[in-house]
């Protein structure tokens, strides 16, 4: 059944249009559809499922069809571009944010998060998402070699290390490390396996390759303007269309949601000042080490069982182990961070890595090639620290969120990010820590990725349209409603107020879950016959701990 109806020659109608189908969009689509609303999801990228996910690095395979890489000025952003959004391309590391994060003051000098949101207040919503996907605690017994090596190095340096909670079903995972091309084994519990099929079953419609350009007002709500996108060459836009809805949920991602809103200003009127500002790259930074296999055996006592200590960078499932010793609430802001072992696929994941002992620029040349010969001995370490929300988007491009260079993936975005002294100091602290852990007694040589070529680099864009209590520094109120534009909600990573010091997907999803009773209530006020059911996609009703009432929901 199609939930949208043709009522005139061009404009269709739905109760709610959801823009984007990642965590923020899928969760909204599910709750609104199960509550009785007619929901239309518009997704810019293609709709692929397990059989479509290829183990292939060729341009045009799933690895480039579902991924966007936007180069900005001082910051480049990787993000999902497909039905299921980031959940399809991510590594499924799903820790909760530490308590101190919610007390951060950041660049504004007062608490960044709404007063109503603390870790304790968010825990019931974390629980719900963890049940729905599901997310599970991991064990060292099933941690891949790279995570084991990082843990052993941490231990030898006097640190703790934890397996990171994950949305991967370890039993069906083959540790192929092709996660960013989509999981052909459905071991990664992406939104394609829970919220989205459940939303479809409740009558929601998902339209892939529909790129929303802007919104305008109607008597009863909003008109959503989109273009069709060519399924192979995303530079080629097709026909335009419009859909009217009383409620719009924007969840196009932190590098796209503010762009759509800024482009809508001529028709919607002025946006809150924080739309397109306060962007955070989650304080992310990468170091790549080259491990000395003999030293790994001698110092850490490692052996794969075949006489080799490590040489297994290609094996695994992305990041599996992190050290959280610096996630200490008593430390000053901008000095707290996690360090997480990470795999990055070849291509974009090798370009910026720098030969540790290169005399010139480390990203190219003879020394880089020698480093590449030892690729299986690489270990990449991911820093997530507290940045300063320095990012600002410039005027929107003509369409989409990027000037697309390649048919897929590569484009130029209008984001400008000049790291402040706070961020630079945090990165320097983390770099020194990575060095202290991995270079101890000659275990490895390590160097940060080049920031000269494309600036800093984030796979977790955040905060470009954030929630907060202060209208001057937050675009959304604590219910995720856009200030001054009732009926527009933002539920993606752009709503997160700032860097989380850990992987943000579970927090983005928990915030979206938390926002849903309020979004449904707004829909009812708009005359839509919908209710908040509190169910989860698994079909089970929520436990006592996870009831919205227990969480103090609106």
């Amino acid at each position, binding site marked *: 059944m199609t939930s949208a109806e043709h009522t005139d020659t061009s404009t269709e109608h739905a109760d709610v249009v959801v823009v984007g189908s990642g965590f923020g969009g899928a969760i909204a689509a599910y709750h609104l559809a199960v509550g009785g609303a007619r929901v239309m999801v518009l997704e810019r990228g293609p709709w692929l499922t397990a059989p479509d996910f290829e183990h292939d*690095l060729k341009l045009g395979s799933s690895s480039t069809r579902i991924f966007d890489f936007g180069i900005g000025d001082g910051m480049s952003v990787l993000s999902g571009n497909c039905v299921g959004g980031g959940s399809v391309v991510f590594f499924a590391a799903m820790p909760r944010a530490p308590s101190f994060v919610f007390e951060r003051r950041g660049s504004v000098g007062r608490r960044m998060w709404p007063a109503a949101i603390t870790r304790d207040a968010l825990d019931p919503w974390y629980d719900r998402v963890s049940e729905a996907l599901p997310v599970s605690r991991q064990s060292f017994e099933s941690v891949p070699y790279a995570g084991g090596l990082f843990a052993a190095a941490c231990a030898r340096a006097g640190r703790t290390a934890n397996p990171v909670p994950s949305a991967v079903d370890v039993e069906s995972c083959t540790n192929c490390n092709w996660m960013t091309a989509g999981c052909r084994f459905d071991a990664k519990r992406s939104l394609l396996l829970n919220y989205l099929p459940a939303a479809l079953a409740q009558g929601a419609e998902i339209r892939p390759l529909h790129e929303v350009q802007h919104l305008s007002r109607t008597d009863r709500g909003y008109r959503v303007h989109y273009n069709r996108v060519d399924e192979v060459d995303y530079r080629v836009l097709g026909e335009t269309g419009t859909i009217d809805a009383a409620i719009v949920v924007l969840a196009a991602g932190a590098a796209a949601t503010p762009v759509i809103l800024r482009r809508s200003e001529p028709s919607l009127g002025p946006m809150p000042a924080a739309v397109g500002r306060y962007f955070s790259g989650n304080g992310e930074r990468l170091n790549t080490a080259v491990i000395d296999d003999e030293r790994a055996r001698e110092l850490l006592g490692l052996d794969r069982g075949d006489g080799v200590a490590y040489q297994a960078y290609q094996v695994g499932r992305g990041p599996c182990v992190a050290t959280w010793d610096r996630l200490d609430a008593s430390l000053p802001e901008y000095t707290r961070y996690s360090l997480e072992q990470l795999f990055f696929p070849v291509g974009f994941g090798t370009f910026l890595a720098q030969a540790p002992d290169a005399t010139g620029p480390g990203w190219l040349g003879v020394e880089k090639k020698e480093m590449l010969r030892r690729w299986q001995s690489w270990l990449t370490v991911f820093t997530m620290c507290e940045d300063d929300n320095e990012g600002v988007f410039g005027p929107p491009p003509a369409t989409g969120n990027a000037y697309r260079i390649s048919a897929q993936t590569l484009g130029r975005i209008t984001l400008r990010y000049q790291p402040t002294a706070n961020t630079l100091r945090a990165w320097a602290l983390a770099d020194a820590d990575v060095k202290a852990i991995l270079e101890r007694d000659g275990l490895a040589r390590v160097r940060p990725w080049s920031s000269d070529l494309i600036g800093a680099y984030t796979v977790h864009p955040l905060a470009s349209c954030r929630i907060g209590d202060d209208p001057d520094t937050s675009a959304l109120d604590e219910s995720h409603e856009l200030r001054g534009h009732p009926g527009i909600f933002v539920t993606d990573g752009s709503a997160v107020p700032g860097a989380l010091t850990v992987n943000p997907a579970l927090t983005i999803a928990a915030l979206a879950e938390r926002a849903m009773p309020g979004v449904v209530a707004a829909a009812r006020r708009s005359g839509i016959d919908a209710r908040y059911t509190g169910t989860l996609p698994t079909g089970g009703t929520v436990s006592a701990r996870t009831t919205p009432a227990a969480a103090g929901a609106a």
Partner: protein
Amino acid sequence: MDILPPVSQRWTQKGGETVSDDAQRARVATLEAFADTVIPGEKRWPGDRAVAGVSDGGGAVAAGALALLELPEVGLAAGLAGLAALLDERAAWYATEHGLAHDPSVPPFVALPYDDRVELVRRVTAPGHPAKDLWVGLAVFCTMAFDAAAHLHTTDAIAADHPGLATIGFRPPEADGVWRFPRYSYQRPLADQHPDTTPSGSPA
């Protein structure tokens, strides 16, 4: 000591393959030299000028960098001639600036010694350079030709002993063309966990 092929065959993409148009030959040689600067390789034949020959085994050129750059979906093909011309212009200035001898038999960038090619690439990719994006884009795809063989199906590239995938030691798939690693873990605790870890496995 260089043993040059006949002039008509210089700067071509493959030894012995003649390209008639001088500008086209210069363009190819300059782009090959750029790719070889990013990921260097060994000379393809005695007297190969585009490939500097500073590294053993194939580099970005042998890996197929030009084939990748010329794919329309990459988005750089239409600008390659202009980029090559711009790079040669820069190289000519650089040579003058450093008092390097001109060699009219090859394009100016190809004429530069390898270390000077690296220095010039570093300059044009440095923060603040007005055309930085273009050069970085070119370098990205040269890298991707080498270590991702992004113009080929990965299984085909492995079967053909692609120099980049072979150099990095990229492990092959199982017989069905799919990667699985049944042995993947040391299967034992290798560190103490943080004392404040919550029951969900997260930081407190």
